[in-house]
């Protein structure tokens, strides 16, 4: 571990990396601050650029962009009541209430510092836990991987917002897309209609770019949101007066928010938006003054801001160790890692431990940079908020096309991006969440391959899945995830009947 840090430092402390981190910080802050552009979309737009980079700077760019975007989305949430990304939606009421009370600098001061502290907490957990988990997971066979992937898919459906049935349908759509292409175990082509470009399946990066970016682009044209002009925030240095004392008083909230955020991040399929919703709810539940929540609660703000940035780091634990994405951003990161030859899994910790540690160090740096660069972004926010999304749309579309083409230099990527993008728009307009479909595309093959592999090893017997203790433990976890919603539903029904 420690030797890896020594090897990793020369990879991180270079002028090239400094330039990459600063440029992607600026990019992330900008995209985060423009209302309605998500951190995932910022990541998708980075994909074509990362093709020209070495592995460590490429992932560093994504990590920095996402961390900055998640923080910066609090700025429009506070100033114009439109969250920059979904991760700020949980506590938008509090941000805006503080703004109306004339305490906008205080609100953003809390957001900057709590985001940075939560992010650093998550990064430290990642640095310590991931290599340990990787050593354990070297003993995982296809049995354990099957249950892990199944757990991920189940969590994606059960933890999502909205109806479980719609999430399930969305997941099934993703799994259907994943089954296109050569069946990896028998080598038989499925649903390719004789097209060689589909033989290796629906290329996953173009699919992700399309499903995240295209719906937002279409909505830009359909809705034509007008953002009201905002007054400059004033001297941003005044933000920090009294914040230190507040953070010390709410240290329990800070710790609990970071902890919950990290755990939600580690769970496959749930990212920073769900992390901030859940920790905000927990904070309200245990608060002595729950009536303040939604009306300018500063402790609630501390907890949820810490949670969404720590979830961002937590999501990299399963992504790096098992190749199972913790959220939609890491789903894209996994695609980029494969292109760079750093195939995620326990092996990469053995073969490229220094690069992995370098990526983890970037997490720390990016979260530390939130404080100075965040100040700058807040100072400039009145200018950024004036940028019209409509003017950005052609640029974004250009990036999407370049990104889907560059993955294997073929136009089929562009077609996949556009078709799935339009489909994702139709899904979202009808209340179907897109995230389960994405996870279906990313993990469908993982589930299938490990299922078939385990069946072959056990000569077709299902009992073979329960031969190994860790596999049995994971199977029980899956059962818990399946049964809990049913039990909750049953309890609610009984309560209603008896009432």
């Amino acid at each position, binding site marked *: 571990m420690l030797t890896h840090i020594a090897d990793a430092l020369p990879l991180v402390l270079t002028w090239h990396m400094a330039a990459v981190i600063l440029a992607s910080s600026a990019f992330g802050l900008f995209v985060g601050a423009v209302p309605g552009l998500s951190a995932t979309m910022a990541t998708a737009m980075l994909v074509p650029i990362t093709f020209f980079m070495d592995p460590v700077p490429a992932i560093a760019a994504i990590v920095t962009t996402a961390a900055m975007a998640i923080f910066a989305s609090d700025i429009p949430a506070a100033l114009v009541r439109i969250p920059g990304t979904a991760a700020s939606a949980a506590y938008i009421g509090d941000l805006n209430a503080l703004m109306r009370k004339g305490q906008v600098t205080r609100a953003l001061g809390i957001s900057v510092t709590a985001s940075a502290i939560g992010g650093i907490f998550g990064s430290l957990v990642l640095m310590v836990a991931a290599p340990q988990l990787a050593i354990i997971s070297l003993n995982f*066979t296809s049995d354990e991987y099957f249950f892990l992937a199944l757990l991920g898919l189940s969590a994606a459906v059960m933890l999502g917002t909205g109806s479980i049935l719609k999430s399930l349908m969305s997941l099934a759509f993703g799994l259907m897309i994943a089954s296109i292409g050569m069946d990896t175990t*028998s080598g038989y082509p499925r649903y390719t209609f004789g097209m060689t470009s589909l*033989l290796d399946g629906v290329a996953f990066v173009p699919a992700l770019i399309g499903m995240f970016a295209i719906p937002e682009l279409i909505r830009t044209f359909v809705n034509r949101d007008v953002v009201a002009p905002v007054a400059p925030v004033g001297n941003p240095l005044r933000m920090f007066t009294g914040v230190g004392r507040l953070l010390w008083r709410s240290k329990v909230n800070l710790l609990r928010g970071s902890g919950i955020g990290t755990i939600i991040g580690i769970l496959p399929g749930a990212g920073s938006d769900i992390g901030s919703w859940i920790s905000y709810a927990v904070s309200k539940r245990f608060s002595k003054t729950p009536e303040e929540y939604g009306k300018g609660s500063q402790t609630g703000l501390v907890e949820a801001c810490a949670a969404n940035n720590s979830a961002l780091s937590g999501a990299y634990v399963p992504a790096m160790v098992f190749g199972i994405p913790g959220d939609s951003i890491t789903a894209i990161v996994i695609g980029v890692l494969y292109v760079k*030859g750093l195939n995620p*899994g*326990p*092996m990469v910790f053995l073969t490229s431990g220094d690069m992995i540690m370098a990526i983890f160090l970037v997490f720390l740096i990016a979260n530390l940079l939130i404080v100075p660069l965040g100040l700058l972004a807040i100072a400039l926010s009145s200018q950024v908020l004036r940028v019209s999304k409509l003017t950005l749309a052609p640029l974004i579309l250009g990036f999407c096309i370049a990104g889907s083409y560059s993955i294997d230099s073929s136009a089929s990527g562009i077609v996949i991006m556009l078709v799935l993008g339009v489909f994702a728009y139709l899904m979202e307009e009808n209340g179907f969440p897109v995230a389960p479909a994405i996870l279906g595309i990313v993990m469908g093959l993982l589930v299938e391959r490990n299922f078939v*592999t385990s069946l*072959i090893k056990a*000569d077709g017997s299902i009992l073979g899945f329960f031969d190994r203790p860790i596999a049995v433990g994971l199977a029980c976890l899956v059962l818990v995830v399946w049964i809990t919603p049913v039990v909750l539903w049953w309890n609610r029904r009984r309560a209603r009947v008896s009432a």
Partner: protein
Amino acid sequence: MKLTKRQIMGGLALLASSLALPATAQDWPDGRITLIVPWGAGGGTDATARIIGTLLQERVGVPVAVENRTGGSGVIGHAAIADATPDGQTIGVATLEIGTMHNLGLTELDYTAYTPLGLYNSDPAAIFVNARSDFADIGGLLAALEDAPDRQFKGSGSAQGGVNHLALAGMLMAAGMPAERVAWVPSEGAAPGLQDLAAGGVEVATASLPEAAALMGAGLIRPLAVFASERLDIAPDVPTFNEATGHDFALGSWRGLVAPAGVAPEIAAQMTEVLGEVLQDPQYVSFMTERGYAMQWTTGADFESFMMTSDAALGDTLRAVGLAAQ
């Protein structure tokens, strides 16, 4: 304008060089070179092709663009090389799969679609067991396999019909056992198969030594024998299958530089010569040594007959394991 003697001399020299141009224009290269790689960026074939591309560009002074044309289990890239204009400006890396793809029925394409330039690498497969396994040597393993019923032992290391699958099946057949004595558990590439071996999911795995280096270094798996005609420099302690068992069998993945069929022989000869010089470059040698890739340069007709033998052997093995298309 007054011409000085020096200017006149310079002009004459320029004229002479422009007169000489048509003669060199028939030489190779005539402008930008494209080097097609049928496998993804970041893999072993891509890494070797990129260093050859960079050094070739330095050597001949024209841009060399490395293009990854992936997909279709290698069909798309191999076809792109074969379909290019045979003027020497497009070359590519052909790999062992050129002998399996048409036998699997994925394409009509085989080695005859190319002008062979030279074989620059072949990494023999080796057979591995878990470090905690009871098998001390390959003889012990073969004896246990001899006594075991079909499909009791499980093996992994590549996709169905991939090179490592064929290596294991070929080994069994060379030792006089049916190919289905070991049930093949397909994996996507060598790394997941070897990891499954380390985790105790399968009893044996086949892969090349560079592919297994990380897990061998971690002390989790150990090689029993290598399917080569002589011991390898990178692992002098590992016996060859032949010396340890007396059965004759060798197989490994290989990578060679090819051009589309129909390149004029004198241009092909020139290309082979220049590429041969590039492969002497110390930068290339240290890269290959560092990664543990074996080096060689088998050119022209020798490379062609190598591909022919490889093709026939792979066809036989695929038919034996029941994967060959009708």
